[in-house]
């Protein structure tokens, strides 16, 4: 059961930034991640982390919209 991190990526919040290195807050403590791929990131942003890298800054507004859309789709049930 060796771990595979092929496409696994989790949303975490950025707590600190120092150059292209960041520390994200998880329920377990801070994890260091490389921010080279997301130069626009700011403290407080949520990012998708994969194999030690932040891959993308997550859009909270779009998240809300997706959830809204799905909630509306099942209203009739």
């Amino acid at each position, binding site marked *: *059961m*060796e*771990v*595979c*991190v092929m496409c*696994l990526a*989790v949303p975490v919040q950025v707590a600190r930034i120092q150059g292209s290195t960041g*520390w994200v807050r*998880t*329920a*377990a*403590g*801070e*994890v*260091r991640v490389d921010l080279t791929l997301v130069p626009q990131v700011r403290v407080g942003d949520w990012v998708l*982390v994969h194999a030690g890298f932040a891959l993308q800054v997550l859009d909270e507004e779009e998240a809300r919209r997706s959830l809204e859309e799905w909630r509306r789709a099942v209203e009739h049930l």
Partner: protein
Amino acid sequence: MEGVVSLAHGDGGLATRELLREVFLKYLDDPALRRLEDSARVDFPGPCLVLTTDAFVVSPLFFPGGDIGCLSVYGTVNDLCCLGADPLFLTASFVLEEGLRLADLERIVASMAQATRRVGVRLVAGDTKVVPRGMADGLYVTTSGVGHIPPGTDLRPERISPGDRILVSGTIGDHGVAVLAARHRLLEGEATLASDCGPVHRLAGAARRFAPGLKVMRDPTRGGLATVLKELAEAGRCDLLVEEEALPTDPAAAAVAELLGLDLLYLASEGKLVAVAAPEAADAILQAWRQLPEGQRASCVGEVREGSGRVLLKTALGGTRELHLVTGEPLPRIC
């Protein structure tokens, strides 16, 4: 203490005696052990002996929540407790790597001593060997334990019957995740993730009060809850149905498990109990467990059904899938 373990420490003569006196006996203070004889003579309360042994090869030696020392005590004690025994005596054998820092050895031995006191078990005999650098990663410890089962105690999976409830004393998978996170140095600064390394003697004692409703107990170590349940289902020749949403998990452990792509169901706990009990006994056991600090998250996670040895998981979405024994290379050096 300064310096490192040297091959001389394993000479069986003066250097060994010095090591024993200055490190081991400094903390492991037992009259039988102090005699430094090859065997220990002890008084035993009555018939029905429980014996167990375990080797501990965990890496790293020190991890958040514990170390190889206390783990080697609790691991063996817990195995005795699961059968309903009162843990009484331990032996410990050490294989030390040349170059192991004596300060680290001291910490480990001190931790073992503290663990034995916490449980009230006597460490009465031991052995140390030293191997050349590179032949053991720091150190390996093997502990054996002896306990006494009160007459009439009958805890075994064959007693499981349909309608029984499946209980866990707390959050699952904490130890496995904590050790992996420590090994890969995943977390920095103040980490809230820790191994649950600890004794289950109070939990076991509380549950035993409700025999004969209590059918069997196990501690979910290597292989995790899923593996223990699979063993119980097969030995008990029934099906166990578990609700995914009822499984207690620690948010820190869950977060790291997700980050590493791991399944908490298959990761070790080192301070938890799984019990199968008839419904009324189950309620009483849960209540008793929740009174203890180590049982705050005790939960009923499922029930026993007629069957043939399967473990079925009802997922949060309402689907059901079967849990199998994990195959292939297990996560190395977790215990």
